[in-house]
């Protein structure tokens, strides 16, 4: 058989196949057109379309559906990567905010410096302790250091440090806020990096009660309030609060606090 015949036959066969399949696909896609969420379609367009299943869903379309339904994370597609995530965000209206990132701040300096009321045996979880008897710390407002927040963080950003207080690794934190929601004592609070001076206490107890149980609790003595040149500190209900808008991070309060419970980061 000559080369030309071979080539012609090949062309005819495959061309025929292409024709049949092209017609079939077009016809089928016309005939069986189903109503779909246009958002999903749009997201499908953006996705790599490898249908590799690497996202954990059954193909790109499935992932797109889940993303639109907010069941899947924007950056769930490892193939597309960050750019795809951003593009998806643009479609479904979840802009990646350009504002400064906030990280959880621990409003308690007690830890091992705060007395325990009893000896606890059981699961390592703050909520569990609270369920048993309002928490083991002498201070009702204090961090129990049993790491409910640690377990709540899906990114492993929190750990309990040597003072039995949580510490947040900013490199890992995504500001998702799950730890804030999980803490039974509301110890954690979002704070921007630029907000540098914080009161490391959450206790509204009277000074005497605080002193009895904790070495570093705010006793509401108002020394900081008096000394702040910017008028940024107010003591309400036995607890100093800093107005971050006014605070210039001069550090005077940090120096003056007799309990050392104001911290400069």
């Amino acid at each position, binding site marked *: 058989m000559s080369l030309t015949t071979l*080539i012609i036959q090949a*062309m005819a*066969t495959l*061309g025929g*196949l*292409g*024709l049949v399949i*092209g017609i079939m696909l077009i016809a089928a896609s016309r005939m069986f057109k189903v109503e779909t969420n246009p958002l999903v379609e749009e997201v499908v367009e953006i996705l790599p379309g490898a249908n590799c299943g690497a996202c954990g869903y059954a193909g790109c379309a499935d992932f797109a559906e889940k993303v639109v339904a907010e069941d899947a994370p924007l950056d769930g597609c490892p193939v597309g990567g960050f750019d795809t995530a951003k593009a998806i965000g643009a479609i479904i209206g979840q802009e990646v905010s350009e504002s400064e990132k906030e990280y959880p701040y621990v409003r308690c300096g007690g830890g091992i410096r705060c007395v325990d009321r009893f000896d606890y045996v059981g699961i390592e979880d703050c909520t569990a302790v609270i369920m048993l008897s309002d928490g083991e710390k002498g201070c009702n407002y204090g961090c129990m250091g049993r790491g409910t927040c640690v377990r709540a963080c899906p990114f492993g950003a929190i750990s309990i440090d040597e003072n039995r207080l949580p510490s947040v690794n900013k490199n890992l934190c995504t500001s998702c806020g799950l730890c804030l929601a999980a803490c039974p004592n509301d110890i954690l609070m979002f704070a921007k990096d630029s907000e540098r001076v914080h009161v490391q206490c959450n206790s509204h107890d009277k000074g005497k009660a605080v002193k009895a149980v904790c070495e570093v609790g705010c006793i509401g003595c108002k020394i900081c309030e008096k000394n702040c040149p910017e008028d940024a500190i107010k003591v309400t209900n036995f607890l100093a609060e800093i107005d971050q808008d006014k605070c210039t991070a001069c550090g005077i309060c940090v120096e003056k606090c007799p309990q050392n419970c104001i911290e400069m980061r």
Partner: protein
Amino acid sequence: MTDSNKDIVIIIGKLVLISVIASALLAVTFVPTNEQLKKNYAEARTSTLAEVMPSAAEFEAIYGDTVINDEGDKEILYYRAKDGSGNLVGYAFFRKQVGAQGLIEVAGGVDSSFNAITGIGIMAHTETPGLGSKIADDPFKSQFTNVKVADLSLSKSGGAIDSITGATISSQAVIDALNEQVGDIKVAEA
């Protein structure tokens, strides 16, 4: 023709166009590679034949009855090996045998009196790499050089061939291939 129908035609046209170009490209590659393939195949066979039967200078193919391609070629059953002066020195052959994983194509030579194997070669196999694939390695193949046909069995069943550890099946398959083909030739020549 409506706009959308025109689109369809364009789409299908592009699809067909690409198919056609693709097939042309393939056909163009196919021709020289296929030539090469045939050449490789023939070369491999001749060189293997020479290897399994070093004393021979010329191989005369013995054809069977089965036609194997459109050109009317007949199946080759085995070869008669002759030395430079045309004396029959033995027989050489190829044989496919079921191994542990798939077909093994064994080449072999036997002297004219069907006394001893002159050498073997492995043309193709799909045995487990590292296990059965060792049948294609020299330490195994060289065991067969000048081995008596009577001793053509595994050492554990009293023969002269040490099987490859972990690959008894493959080793046995090679031996079986030789034994059976030698038997067949004997019958054919008788």
